[in-house]
């Protein structure tokens, strides 16, 4: 990991933070009163600022700081996050992203304009001076509005030096905030022979005479916050005389309440001789107010700390950042392991050595669970993708002046990460189409008696070994007549040809087909749906389209869970062996003699239902005589069930999918290939293609019968 470019790490982290920020901002549109959202937006901003500064993105840090300052008012609840404010905030977010991704080409003028907008939006209700008062300090300084400075007590973890942090640097940073009086506390320094040279034994008492925000101090210690104890007590105006050095021994009582509350270490409570100058003579009478102020302090601190703890917990438990390539590599290795394991199992099954058989079974079990774990590690909840579309919908609905409610569900549905990446573009197309073509404009909706606000649903759900992703709108539905007219006009169908609605809708996926009367910037050029279809099919998925006139359209993408390994059923047809994805297999039945005899009727009777069947021997090259007792594998896609007649069912096979080369791109009935235990290649049957083949065949048969 050390070889990683730190800036790259920052970019990755930032892009995740941007997602959080954008999500929170968009949620705020809906629920402007949700404090949690404001806080999470603020946290994301703050982290971007901090990490940005650390990795040398100074412009980012500076801009974010300004942005954050303005946003502070929202956080304090003084102004409501209005739509305009959120729009500006989103623009600001985009600008920060641009600053990070292409710092050279991004013009600072945009940033200034955004800040001006932002200030105008927040200004009328809040004078600037209040902005400067940070939220946390506000709590602490409940009694004293203006603090004259801060008294700090710093205790670092003893191993802090091993982590590369230098407390002296931090103290120097602190000095930059204002005149500082720093006193080391040396009580804990052990005798020389017990002293670990790499440990930090010193503590510090600092009196900072500066009218700065608490957050400014927190920022100094931002990166070591987990490794230190920081006690902050504001100095009141009355304490200011402390600036005039008046060394005088301090009564124990004065110091006690101030420091003991947060730092239980008894050593601190007893002021060292060196500590004398820091404590002012006025301390004795002041003991009372100091104690008072100290009391709310831990609470305020606890609040900010809780946020940080929460964040670090999320990070520690939820994610480990791993390069995607490594996961791909891991998947490849597991794939090879599975193939090798299949060979071992085959050898073991052929032999008679019991102990080898046991080991083979053990390895089979381990390989299977390793495969599942690896695939699990590659699974990403689809919600990460959905988040992106909220912005899209927000912007489109504004540009097209069609108010749209965007509802997502099933964000937890997990998909292989490569699938998620491939899905982004098709979904953008579908959502654009839904808003641009699907949802009618406000007037038309009113006429149709619908709510003014359109509704777009994005829904993901597991269904067996598939994931269904649905984009549904409650717009006008597809205009079948117009699609038909257009198809006739383009010469795709003969005028008057008998076609079902479903078949007509398929023309939408035809390259260059568009029924939109006007070409907008968004859609209507006729490129899109064909690309969507191709992308989905490349993922071994399929598209279903259903529409109800006047009620809307829904497009469902059926996708396999993973692209890498599937469970398969190994069958034999003649000499050739083939794989059927197990997810599609419903049951296996023996082909009865009567079914076999009848040549004219390719239907099976499965518990009273008619199921058409295909003889694989007629489709695939097969030498030799068919087996006497042929088996039928009933497969299904969606609603349709089809039987496949094979010579033999060999058994389960963990199938590592290898795609077929470009030279075989014209072969449709196979979706890929795999390697069997004996090292030969076997082809994976494409179930959807076989089903449509069977349907075409049975339709032909019906026509023949009718004729």
């Amino acid at each position, binding site marked *: 990991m050390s070889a990683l470019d730190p800036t790259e790490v920052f970019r990755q982290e930032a892009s995740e933070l941007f997602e959080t920020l954008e999500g929170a901002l968009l949620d705020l549109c809906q629920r402007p009163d949700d404090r949690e959202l404001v806080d999470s937006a603020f946290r994301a901003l703050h982290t971007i600022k901090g990490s940005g500064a650390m990795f040398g993105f100074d412009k980012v840090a500076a801009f974010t700081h300004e942005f954050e300052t303005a946003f502070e008012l929202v956080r304090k609840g003084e102004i409501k996050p209005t739509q305009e404010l959120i729009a500006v905030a989103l623009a600001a977010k985009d600008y920060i992203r641009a600053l990070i991704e292409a710092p050279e080409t991004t013009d600072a003028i945009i940033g200034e304009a955004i800040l001006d907008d932002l200030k105008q939006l927040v200004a009328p209700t809040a004078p600037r001076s209040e902005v400067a008062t940070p939220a946390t300090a506000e709590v602490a300084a409940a009694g004293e509005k203006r603090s004259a400075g801060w008294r700090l007590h710093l205790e670092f973890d003893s191993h802090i030096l091993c982590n590369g942090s230098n407390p002296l640097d931090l103290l120097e940073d602190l000095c930059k905030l204002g005149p500082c009086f720093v006193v080391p506390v040396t009580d804990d320094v052990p005798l020389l022979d017990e002293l670990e040279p790499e440990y930090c034994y010193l503590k510090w008492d600092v009196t900072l005479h500066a009218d700065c925000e608490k957050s400014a101090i927190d920022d100094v210690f931002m990166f070591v916050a987990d490794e230190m104890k920081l006690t902050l007590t504001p100095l009141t105006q009355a304490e200011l005389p402390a600036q005039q050095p008046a060394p005088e021994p301090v009564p124990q009582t004065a110091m006690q309440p101030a420091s003991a509350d947060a730092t239980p270490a008894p050593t601190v409570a007893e002021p060292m001789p060196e500590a004398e100058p820091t404590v002012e003579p006025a301390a004795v009478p002041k003991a009372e107010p100091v104690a008072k102020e100290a009391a709310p302090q831990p609470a305020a601190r606890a609040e900010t700390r809780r946020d940080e703890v929460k964040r670090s917990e999320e990070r520690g438990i939820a994610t480990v950042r791993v390069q995607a390539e490594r996961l791909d590599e891991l998947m490849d290795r597991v794939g090879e392991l599975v193939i090798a394991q299949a060979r071992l199992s085959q050898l073991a099954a052929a032999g008679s050595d019991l102990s080898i058989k046991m080991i083979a079974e053990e390895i089979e079990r381990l390989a299977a669970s390793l495969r599942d774990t690896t695939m699990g590690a590659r699974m990403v909840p689809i919600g990460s993708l959905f988040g992106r579309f909220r912005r899209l919908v927000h912007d489109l609905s504004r540009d097209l002046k069609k108010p749209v409610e965007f509802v997502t569900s099933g964000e937890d549905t997990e998909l292989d990460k490569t699938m998620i990446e491939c899905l982004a573009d098709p979904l953008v197309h579908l959502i654009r189409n839904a808003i641009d073509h699907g949802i009618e404009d406000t007037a038309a909706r009113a006429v149709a008696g619908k709510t003014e606000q359109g509704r777009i649903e994005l829904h993901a759900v597991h269904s067996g070994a598939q994931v269904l992703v649905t984009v549904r709108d409650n717009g006008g539905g597809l205009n079948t007549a117009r699609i038909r007219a257009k198809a006739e006009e383009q010469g795709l169908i003969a005028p008057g040809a008998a076609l079902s609605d479903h078949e007509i809708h398929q023309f939408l996926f035809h390259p260059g087909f568009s029924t939109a009367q006007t070409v907008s910037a968004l859609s209507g050029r006729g490129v899109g749906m064909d690309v969507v279809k191709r992308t989905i099919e490349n993922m071994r998925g399929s598209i279903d389209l259903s529409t109800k006139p006047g009620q809307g359209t829904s497009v469902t993408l059926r996708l396999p869970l993973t692209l890498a390994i599937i469970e398969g059923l190994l069958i034999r047809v003649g000499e050739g062996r083939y794989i059927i994805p197990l997810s599609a297999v419903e049951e296996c039945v023996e082909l009865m003699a009567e079914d076999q005899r009848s040549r004219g009727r390719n239907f099976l009777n499965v518990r009273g239902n008619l199921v058409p069947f295909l003889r694989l021997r007629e489709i695939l090259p097969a030498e030799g005589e068919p087996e006497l007792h042929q088996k039928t594998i009933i497969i299904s896609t969606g609603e349709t069930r089809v039987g496949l007649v094979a010579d033999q069912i060999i058994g389960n096979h963990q199938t590592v999918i*290898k795609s*077929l080369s*470009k030279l075989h791109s014209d*072969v449709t*009935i196979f979706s890929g290939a795999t*390697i069997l235990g004996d090292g030969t*290649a076997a082809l994976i049957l494409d179930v959807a293609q076989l089903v449509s083949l069977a349907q075409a065949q049975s339709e032909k048969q019906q026509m023949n019968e009718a004729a």
Partner: protein
Amino acid sequence: MSAPEVQEAAVNQDGSIQVVMIGVGDEKFALDAGMVREIIDPIPATRVAGAKAFVPCVINVRGNVIPLADLRIRFGMPMTEDTAETRIVVIELAIDNEPVLVGLTADKVYEVTEISRTNVQQTPRVGMHWKPEFIRFITKWREEFVIVPNMERILN
């Protein structure tokens, strides 16, 4: 990688080209050595139903499933049984700008050698039943005519 680049890469200073000489049917083909990945003994191949005739099978080469092409079909030669000298030559070429591994069945692999561009013969327009676009050029090697095939064209 486009075809000319492949050609350029293997041309030496003096205009000679390093090639792998293989025998297919009665003809000798000179494959640019730069595109040859490995030469392996025949292994069981899997027929692909519905595939183009000249790439009828797939084979497993080191965990990759690659197509097995047959030059004999493209050049209209009779099919023969495998012999002890039959080999599979695995070549890599660019199809639609993506590198693709393809196995070629060779009746015999002779040697890695050099052919000279100076001996290039004009591909005759008549008296040849092969499609001219399949042939990059015909040259002379040890008093025999050898074909330098245009693999991208043959396989596309």
